[in-house]
């Protein structure tokens, strides 16, 4: 039993250290966002006095005039659509690559990697021209498409790596046991595929959520501007004053959907084990 409690202590210390590592800079951001402007540079980690002005300024003016509200909505919608579509497309492709024999398999993987490797900054200029010609500049679609393009490679690779590890024979075994093909797929394969799929989903979402390069170049108004780009337009009290407090507040608020998204999905990543189909 002493070994058990020693393990417990060790892992608890581990957890605490990990939490500190992950959260200190976030807490610093929160601290900045709660400081009144005169105390921003007082070098204190914990604010001397708390003020919610930065947060209030984000939302005042309602959806039309607030510099933050519409971009927040844009970010959420664009990231969600990108994730759903990317995971769907990547799953199809990864399934084909992991399970089927066909020429061009390596080409697709190599090509996807090549696309992921190209510096986005030089694609922005031509994309700007293309999008303006097609009329999708400053629209949701105008951002969703490049996000898809540049997140598909990672999603495909992650899913291929996981799909390869799934013992597909189990599906046949289940059918021999009397399950229909669909039941076999649903009860045996899906839970095994879940960790990979949800991992890929988190990665795609965060990519779309965080992107700055495309967001600032392919949008020009609140119609489709996302939060990272909107931050470039925040103003302080004068043109020379950095809007430190409001940027920190925006960053904190914008992390909340991420927390929600990850909270939901991280359970799914380990759901596979508990389905009970993996033994044997």
């Amino acid at each position, binding site marked *: 039993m002493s070994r058990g409690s020693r393990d417990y202590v060790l892992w608890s210390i581990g957890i605490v250290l990990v939490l500190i590592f992950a959260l200190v800079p976030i807490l610093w951001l929160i601290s900045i966002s709660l400081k009144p402007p005169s105390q921003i*540079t007082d070098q204190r980690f914990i604010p001397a006095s708390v003020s919610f002005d930065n947060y209030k300024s984000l939302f005042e003016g309602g959806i039309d005039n607030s510099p933050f509200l519409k971009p927040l909505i844009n970010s959420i919608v664009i990231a969600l659509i990108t994730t*759903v579509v990317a995971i769907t497309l990547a799953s199809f492709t990864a399934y084909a690559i992991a399970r089927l024999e066909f020429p061009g398999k390596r080409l697709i993987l190599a090509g996807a990697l090549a696309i992921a490797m190209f510096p986005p900054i030089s694609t*922005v200029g031509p994309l700007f021209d293309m999008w303006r010609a097609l009329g999708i500049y400053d*629209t949701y679609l105008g951002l969703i498409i490049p996000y898809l393009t540049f997140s598909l490679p990672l999603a495909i690779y992650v899913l291929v790596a996981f799909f390869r590890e799934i013992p597909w024979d189990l599906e046949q075994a289940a059918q021999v046991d009397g399950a229909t093909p669909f039941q076999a*797929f649903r009860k045996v394969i899906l839970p095994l595929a879940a960790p990979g799929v949800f991992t890929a989903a988190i990665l795609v979402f965060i990519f779309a959520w965080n992107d700055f390069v495309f967001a600032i170049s392919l949008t020009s108004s609140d119609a489709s501007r996302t939060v990272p780009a909107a931050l*470039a337009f*925040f103003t302080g009290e*004068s*043109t*020379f004053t950095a809007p430190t407090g409001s940027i920190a507040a925006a960053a904190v608020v914008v992390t909340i959907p991420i927390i929600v998204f990850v909270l939901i999905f991280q359970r799914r990543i380990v759901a596979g084990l508990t389905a009970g189909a993996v033994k044997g």
Partner: protein
Amino acid sequence: MGHGSREVNKRTATKALACLAFAALATVGLAACGGSGSGPPQLTFFVAIQPGGTIEETAARCTKEANGRYTIKPELLPNDASQAREQLVRRLGAKDPSIDVIGLDVILTGEFANAGWIEPWQGKRKQEATEEVFPSVIETASFEHKLYAAPFNTNTQLLWYRKDLVPKPPATWNQMIEKAEGLKEAGTIQVQAERYEGFMVWANALIDSAGTEILSGPESVDLEQKPTEEALAVMGKLANSSAAAPNLSTSNEDSARLAFEAGESAFMTNYTFAYASASAEAPDIAKNMGAAPFPRVNSNPSKPPLGGFNLAVSSYSDHKDMAFEAAACLAGEKSQLTAVELDGLPPSRSDLYEGKVVKKAYPGFAGLVKESIEAAGPRPTTPAYQDVSSALQRTLHPPEKIDPEDTEGIYDELKSNLEAAVKREGLL
């Protein structure tokens, strides 16, 4: 592998493809919400938003004065100058017709004019736009002797100092450094020396104050040796003395004013906003805040930095005549008064400095601001401005590397780097 599973997958695949198509249509639908209006043409005014509301107010007033012939819609540019430039350059490079009037940073005039992106102002328009405007400001809006933008607001730097610690402000940089070194508290000087345009502003002011210029023409480097070396020596001396702020090589306008307001420095060179900021954020410091002219480098009169915005008309606009009219209103006398009242931005018309509005915005130092603008040394006008600025920053930053006793080496390096930059050669 059974047929069954593949059929299942085909069914799932078809379903998923259908969902995909739906999602795509939905987003196109969401995306296609753009009003196509009839009615008077809408002129777009691309400008960085001012926190006090200047742009909204001038745009609304000038729309009214148009009497229904056109409306003016401000479009935001990012606040960071280089990001704003990036946006403009991308769109003008693509001949975007959706830009009409541009709020142009003074350093962009040469680049944009040479590229054929902005229209020259001639004849009566030119006369009206430059009426009563400071000559130095007109220079910032001109290229090759033609006016390319209507002067709107300008900006300059003063020497701010703590009256309680230093009764009489120093007249030269060397005196200021010595004084700061001798102070028991707040013995530092705040400038802007991060590797960004603000560093170029400081360097240019020192070089101009020393009596020479960076460029003598759009493609020729001046930099007379003796005055340039004196200016470089000042930079090196400050950077290596105890009077340098601890974060000198990452300092900008904001960090400078924050440090001054926190009582860490007795001296600061900064723009006119510094007083309003201190009054709001640190009234105790503001009480003891004095303003003096930008310090000299040697016996030549000092040439303070010159900033600001001019309003240009895009060459790709579909409504150029109306755009000129709108720009003239947006840059005119009434708009300049709005700008100084709401945002503390110095007007480009010199006659406004006698008036109440300016005196109220700059209590006790309105005259000093006017003199500074009159004496100011603008940054060089050249299409290769970005290259020149980058080359100078790369050569001189961080300023600690300049040895005040031996500036010949760095002078040679600066001169040759700038000569290459002006011809846009090489990698920067």
